[in-house]
């Protein structure tokens, strides 16, 4: 049972990194990114492929972050020229394109068959202790991310981001070019997602393109909305609620016999959808946040 709880803790923290990144993009800067899972995927595959070729993990993790950040540049540039609904669709298309490319280019990624045998983080340690160490490493990563975002929020950069979110025209009128900032924000959020992806790959040790579908992006959106958009604390709380729900539904199966795991997956989809609708209708600001948008 402890092993199970540790695993849940790991999943919570991985999603937390994703949520912090998305919150930076949408909550702080108002960029609608519906393609967040693409950076998660790029980070996971980058680190997995590098480590399978023998690159040590302390190198492959930063490489994953860097590659994800680079991939964010075209999206950042798209964000400059597109209205928010177009940006939403384009980012969605970007993540699906990424997934399809991972699926097709099997000479690189193993294609639909996936990459089995990805070296686990802290592989030299026995299984029980290993998960605890992974959890600890993730805690450190999340705390660093939180510290970084906090200081960013208090800085001039952060003020500028919120100004862009609230009134971009004014910012431009004041002579500051929002363009560069938007790109940087996209890259930063993507880098965080890339690190999350690397942790994920070296935790599950088997990655396939199917794990990186748009549903994951919307799970993360659900987290930040539930917790309250724009609030860092909200992002973390929202993530915990999300994962409790996702994992809790597994136990629900034991209580309510007759539901196969495959069906439970559909139930989860429906519940997340319903939660999105209800949130938008009745409490768009979530638990801790200001209003959406």
């Amino acid at each position, binding site marked *: *049972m*402890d*092993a*199970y*709880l*540790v695993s849940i*803790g790991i999943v919570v923290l991985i999603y937390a990194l994703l949520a912090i990144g998305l919150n930076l993009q949408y909550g702080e800067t108002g960029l609608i990114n519906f393609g967040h899972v693409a950076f998660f995927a790029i980070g996971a595959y980058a680190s997995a492929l590098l480590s399978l070729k023998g690159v040590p993990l302390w190198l492959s993790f930063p490489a994953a972050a860097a590659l994800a950040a680079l991939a964010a540049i075209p999206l950042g540039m798209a964000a400059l020229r597109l209205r928010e609904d177009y940006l939403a669709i384009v980012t969605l298309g970007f993540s699906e394109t990424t997934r399809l490319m991972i*699926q097709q280019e*099997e000479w690189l990624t193993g*294609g*639909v*068959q*996936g990459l*089995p*045998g990805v070296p686990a983080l802290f592989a030299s340690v026995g*299984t029980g202790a290993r998960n605890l160490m992974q959890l600890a490493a993730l*805690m450190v990563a999340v*705390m660093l991310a*939180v*510290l970084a975002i*906090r200081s960013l929020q208090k800085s001039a950069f952060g003020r500028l981001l919120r100004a862009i979110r609230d009134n971009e025209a004014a910012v431009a009128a004041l002579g500051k070019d929002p363009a560069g900032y938007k790109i940087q924000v996209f890259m930063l959020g993507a880098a965080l997602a890339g690190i999350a992806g690397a942790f994920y790959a070296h935790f*599950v*040790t*088997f990655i*396939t393109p*199917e*794990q990186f579908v748009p549903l994951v992006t919307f799970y993360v959106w659900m987290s930040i909305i539930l917790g309250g958009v724009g609030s*860092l*604390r909200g992002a*973390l709380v929202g993530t915990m609620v999300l994962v409790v729900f996702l994992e809790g539904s597994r136990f629900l199966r034991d209580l309510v016999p007759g539901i*196969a*795991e*495959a069906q439970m997956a559909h139930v989860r989809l429906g519940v997340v959808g319903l939660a999105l609708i209800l949130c938008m209708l009745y409490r768009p600001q979530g638990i801790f946040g200001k209003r959406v948008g």
Partner: protein
Amino acid sequence: MTFQRRKILNMAVAGAALSAAPSLVLSQSGNAFRIGALNPITGAGSPYGSGMQKAIQLAIEEVNAAGGAAGRKLEGFYEDDQTQPQSGVLAAKKLIEVNKVQALIGTWASGVTLAVMPLTDEANLIQMNVSGAPAISTLDKKDLVWRFQATNDRFGAAFAEIAKKRGFKRPATMAFNNASGRGNTDGFKRVWEAAGGKVVSEVVYEPNRPSYRSELQKVLAEKPDVIVMGSYLPDTTIILREWYQSGDKLAWIIPGWAANPELIKAVGPEITQGIISVETVSNDGSSSNKLFSERFQKAAGSAASANIYAAMCYDMVISLALAIELAGDKATPQQISNRIRDVSNPPGTAVSSFAQGKQLIASKQKINYEGASSKLDFDASGDAKPDFGVYVIEAGQLVRRDTISIS
């Protein structure tokens, strides 16, 4: 910063809760041998999964009724791999880490077996499967993995033999994009080209698509006289329907797990007329097969002959139990694994049940378990070599027309 402190406090509380939570010890009896049964209860393998699980249960009961293996009772833990590698990995982790199983048996899809092997190898556990991908043999470095089904490579060789016998000259191949599907068609191509023939078109298609029209059109453009498939039931259904609509005439050679009664039901007798279905055949006529079939029919309510994989799973438990009996009650999984050939391969007195084998082992005789699914003479890679049955679908029924042995 209040937030930081709160967060650290939260984490500390969680950590304390973790260490305080009682660990659930899940193995009851002291020295029981724990078997993890990972079967495709849902997904593409679902026609076979429940039967496979039932067969494992039957075998475990049989062994325990005969007093256990080396005095150890067998204990079964059952999970569904959903015929998906990812679900298989999660279920395997649970079986290994939570249930602490010592053998993980019954995986059907090659993708699942390949994904699960790194986990069982790392934990030094025995793995037994009915998957076909050739890669399984090459990746089995510790000789812990045992395959009870013919490799896809040998399936492909059987396809080539059949195609030659029936006089086809222009074969094309279509393969599901995974290790198993491509193993089939690669095996076919190798043997066909070695005999001087030429494959006119080869296509690999992606899983879970609603239509394969483009891929089919590509193949049909080369005017083949037979299409050799490495496929599963859902995609075969779609391809056959689209082929029928295209109006081209040609023959089909399809593996038995795809061209089965479910396919006939899904697509209809007219479209399936004349399709050649190839599957490994059980050790018909052996007493172990008779015994198993009777018990399976009674327990599962369906004929064992419709599910060759059930017979294979039954054999997994029996050969495992016999190996444990030989290796002794203190043996580790690796040591037990090393004895499997000693109980299944010749020379030795042929036995057809666990009780019989146990008795002979007690009197220090060398035994050779002849299984319900095949003779179970494992080669150096841990692969069994069953024979193949050639069936033709005639008027909505699978009719056995031929048997093929590949060395």
